[in-house]
């Protein structure tokens, strides 16, 4: 199942959110994607500049939103990046950001199918 595109997002969470938001579910998807794109763009500049405070803050924000929509793998990757920012650890930050970006693209693709 791990290779399935659907596995990126917790299915039960999707059901709950659709029930909760009703016709505003589309708005949620849109806002999540816009917000995520903005944060990833900020993360790129921050990692390049080794601005740990911004790395910590933005990966923390994306972690929260991702967990809220059930994108738990992405949430965990963001959590790892957040920890590097907190520890002021530049090593592996670039690679982790690439993984986050890739996972985010997959989550967005899956969200759009809902």
């Amino acid at each position: 199942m791990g290779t399935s595109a659907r596995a990126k997002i917790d299915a039960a969470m999707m059901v709950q959110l659709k029930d909760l938001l009703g016709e505003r579910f589309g708005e949620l998807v849109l806002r999540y994607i816009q917000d995520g794109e903005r944060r990833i763009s900020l993360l790129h500049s921050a990692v390049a500049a080794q601005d740990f405070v911004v790395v910590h803050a933005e990966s923390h924000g994306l972690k929260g939103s991702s967990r809220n929509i059930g994108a738990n793998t992405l949430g965990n990757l963001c959590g790892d990046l957040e920890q590097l920012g907190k520890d002021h650890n530049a090593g592996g930050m670039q690679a982790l950001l690439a993984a986050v970006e890739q996972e985010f693209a997959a989550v967005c693709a899956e969200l759009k199918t809902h």
Partner: protein
Amino acid sequence: MTVESPGALKILVAEDSAADRLILQSMLQRSGHEVVLVEDGESAITAFSECHPDLVFLDVIMPNVNGIEAARRIKSLSGDELIPVIFLTSLADAESLATCLDAGGDDFLSKPYNQIVLDSKIKAFSRMREMHRTLAHQKDQISLHNKHLIQEQNVAKQVFDKIAHAGALKLDVIRYYMSALAVFNGDVLLAEISPRGSLFVVLGDFTGHGLPAAIGSMPLASTFYGMVGKGFSLADILREINQKLYQTLPIGLFCCATCVDINFKKNRIRVWNGGLPDNILYRHKTHTYERVRSSHLPLGVLSNRDFKADVQVLHLEKGDHFLMWSDGIQEARNRAGDMFGEDNINAVLDSGLPPAVIYSQILKNVQEHIGSTEKDDDISLVDIAVPDDDRVQALAPQSGMRNGYLEDWELSLTLVASSLKTFNPLSLLIHVISEVPGLRQNSSVLYTVLSELFNNALEHGVLGLESSIKSSPAGFAEYYRLRKEGLEALTEAFVRFEFRHETRQNGGMLTVTVGR
């Protein structure tokens, strides 16, 4: 659509992730709450002041003022009101959580949000707010009641101070220590000079504390001053005070007391001790002491039928000291809670010190025992000296000092037929005679004498009835029938009373003449 439900709250949400904001808003609205949304800390503070929410959700990491600082500002704006602040975070490390709590945060809500967890948290905080509001209301009420209580005590103290004016306490033969609010400890000290120059002192200790203890002091003081001033005996005064307290005070409220009547000319003291610790008569010559133990129940316990006003009479010598105190002395506690106790008092009494310093030594030792505490003390201690100089001369009544009493006088009262039929003059006459201090003490004897004289004048003199008729039970009835008929038929008759009173060196002379 927001549905107003009874548990509906106004909730401020500050969160910079648009998606998270939308989810939380939807969950809160689904539960019927009114939601105000903002995107950063700065607007959270502004919105808080403008919309006065019941509950605040704050993201920790936000642009402009972060969640921590916003919480601090919001808590200071809420003042005494409890407006819970719940942090929205998935921060997991202890240090970050502690920072949130230090800033005034009340709880956390982690992501992903869960409707059930959210609802229970809100419910719990609603209850807490309700309790806080009740508590705040009760706190206001308590402080209001406390203010009332102090006002009432002030008024009561003013009234009491007027009734229990210094009296004769300013005499330099009396030394005493009473705490400023002694009356609310139930302690009362009164002293007054009788018209004959005797010093009357009462130290009373009412059961209980506060206003209930103070209330009994009022009738005690007014009765004491009224009766001492009119020359009543110690026994009469005790009887009257006991009766008043017995009738007016609720069960369980009574007055332990020592009452003394000191005649400095005759060098004798009469003591009645009902329930106070032993009184001490400390001898000048030998530096030894005699105890006057309580031999009665306190005032206000027994009805006057069972009350005993018998006193102990002791001979005094110049330089002797009479000491009395309430149980506040024995029971005075130090910081560790230990009482001063009987042994410490006896140590002073057995020390062989001169009589004049016993009082100050006891007082000093008690106060050292108590140490400095903020609490008002409950000590009442009295010392009466038998002076070895002429100071007591000032106590003796001098001519003109006894204002308001009958001295030399004459009175004639003539009752004619119409009055004789309906009026008994005895209470009127006793009332007049009682204005003479020396006669008041004998008013019951005088009543008997006057009653006999009046009846003889009326029945034998005016109506001409013979005592011999009353020799049989049937004769009694006959006698009173004749008396009634005689009075009804009476037209030309009178009975005349003539009183003449002269004051003399050691009292006075009353001459009574009754004729027809």
